[in-house]
């Protein structure tokens, strides 16, 4: 384009040349992410649905709240805190799990579905590069789903906090315990950090792998996503009677970048605050994971370039 406009400087085409410069890359990226949300409404319907279900169940449990509260009041402060946190953790945990499942399902479908319904020809008729398409799809599990899980968790939590207070006040008890034992703002910040760093970046290699398989597989992308890692793990076990591959994967799903396991930690704030930024930035596993993710994403973009409707 530029070479041509240089060659014919007086042509009316020059006006057209100016236009694209005005459009920064973030705009097509933003709209690419938005269209993913238009197409895959389950991305927010599933977490909101799960949130609604948790809310409903907890509303029913409000009936026992006054008696439960009386029991809690007899405990020591640490145990009190853990008892109150318990529900918050459960809500957050269930939504994390939902986001993980939805994210995996989404990634496996993302680059396969557009070939199956031939719409890839429409997307490719627009000035959006394959890499930008892949990155916009990657942004869904890494950022968007985590933010959705965060907002839903927070909403459920605040609604429960207000309703619990109302119930306690209604039965003549003080609601102060709920508010003083739970550092809710601090916990929310930690939850957001936990979601974006651990569930977003630390799990990124999985989503990258799913996207690559989705871009590559002609059919049954789910099987291609799951069976090869399984086969490698089993082959390693049979051949060497070791399970490095399986434990590596497992650490990456269940563990955290500094090597600890999240499941063991007791209190919510302990768990969320389990890894610190410094530890994270010096953990080789974290960076290796990101490097692998980059390779998967580059491969997904490259494969999409060659791919035709199926």
């Amino acid at each position, binding site marked *: *384009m530029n070479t041509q406009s240089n060659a014919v400087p007086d042509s009316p085409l020059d006006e057209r040349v100016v236009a694209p410069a005005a*459009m920064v890359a973030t*705009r097509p990226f933003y*709209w690419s992410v938005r269209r993913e949300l238009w*197409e895959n409404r389950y991305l927010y319907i599933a977490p909101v649905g799960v949130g609604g279900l948790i809310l409903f169940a907890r509303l029913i449990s409000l009936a026992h709240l006054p008696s439960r509260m009386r029991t809690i009041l007899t405990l020591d402060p640490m145990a009190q805190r853990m008892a109150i946190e318990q529900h918050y953790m459960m809500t957050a945990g269930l939504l994390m799990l939902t986001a993980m499942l939805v994210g995996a399902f989404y990634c496996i479908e993302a680059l396969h579905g557009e070939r199956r319904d031939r719409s890839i020809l429409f997307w490719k*008729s627009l000035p*959006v590069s394959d890499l930008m398409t892949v990155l916009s799809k990657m942004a869904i599990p890494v950022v968007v789903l985590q933010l959705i899980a965060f907002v839903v968790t927070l909403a459920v939590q605040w609604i429960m906090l207000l309703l619990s207070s109302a119930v306690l006040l209604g039965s003549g008890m003080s609601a102060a315990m709920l508010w003083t034992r739970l550092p809710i703002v601090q916990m929310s910040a930690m939850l957001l950090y936990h979601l974006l760093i651990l569930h977003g970046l630390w799990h990124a290699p999985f989503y990258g792998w799913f996207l690559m398989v989705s871009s590559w597989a002609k059919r049954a992308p789910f099987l291609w996503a799951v069976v090869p890692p399984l086969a490698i793990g089993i082959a390693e076990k049979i051949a060497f009677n070791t399970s490095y591959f399986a434990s590596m994967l497992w650490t990456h799903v269940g563990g955290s970048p500094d090597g600890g396991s999240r499941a063991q930690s007791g209190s919510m704030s302990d768990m969320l605050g389990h890894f610190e930024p410094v530890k994270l930035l010096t953990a080789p596993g974290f960076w290796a994971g990101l490097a692998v993710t980059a390779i998967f994403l580059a491969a997904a973009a490259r494969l999409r370039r060659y791919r*035709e409707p199926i």
Partner: protein
Amino acid sequence: MTVIEARGLRKSFGATVALDGVDLRVEEGRILGLIGPNGAGKTTALNAILGLTPYQGELKVLGRDPWAERDQLMRDACFIADVAVLPRWIRVSQALEYVAGVHPRFDRAKAEGFLAKTNIRNTSKVRELSKGMVAQLHLALVMAIDARLLVLDEPTLGLDILYRKQFYDSLLNDYFDRSRTIIVTTHQVEEVQHVLTDLMFIDRGRIVFSCSMEEFESRYLEVTANPEQVAAARALQPIHERPVLGRSILLFDLMTLDKVDRQQLAAFGDVRTPSIADLFVAMLGNKAGNQARVTQGAGR
């Protein structure tokens, strides 16, 4: 200005050769019809031009290498690959919003203007629209893009005759001007004959014939010969002859005839410009074994 320039374009899928050394040059402001039987390599050629498939040989589209720079190229080129590639879940309003979001040369008001002339509602999803309406929507999106090259691969396949006619009418009246270039492949050759400025036949991965429509009209003549003069007409070696309702229709290439002009041929019977389909059958249908495919390919 040259919009497309290809030299020795090759592409094979395994043992099948889809493009076998295609040389191609399309100037700005032309409407080129790429006509060929099924499997001739039309779509492969268009895919190469649009950067959808890798190829061997030299190819420049609007000065760019399409395979390496598809996303850049798509700012200046757009295409309708098929009637059914708009995602079925998308709403009309979302399609407008999305294209406006990602395409720097999309004029949303213009697209809405085109849609206002149709029965398509802004809130409808593509899956709720008829095939003809989907084609109208896609055309409205594409015509609102200020592009320099538009590629249409069977854009009206499966549409009824009203939609087909309307499609080409709006393309000519509301979109085409001398600074744009259009390439179209279709099996409904008759419907594009009056639209085209240039014609190209492709067969088995090769360009077998290419001319402008002016040349086509001055060069080829079809004579519905009077029965008593058929023998005399045959003596002039028509390139093709076919019987219709008991009379013979002979197709002549005036370039190959010495000192024969329209007046002389008119003496044998009624003279008219042949249809592209007739010439296509004459040129490609003669090959043994090709007949059935070609007649189908020519939309007969």
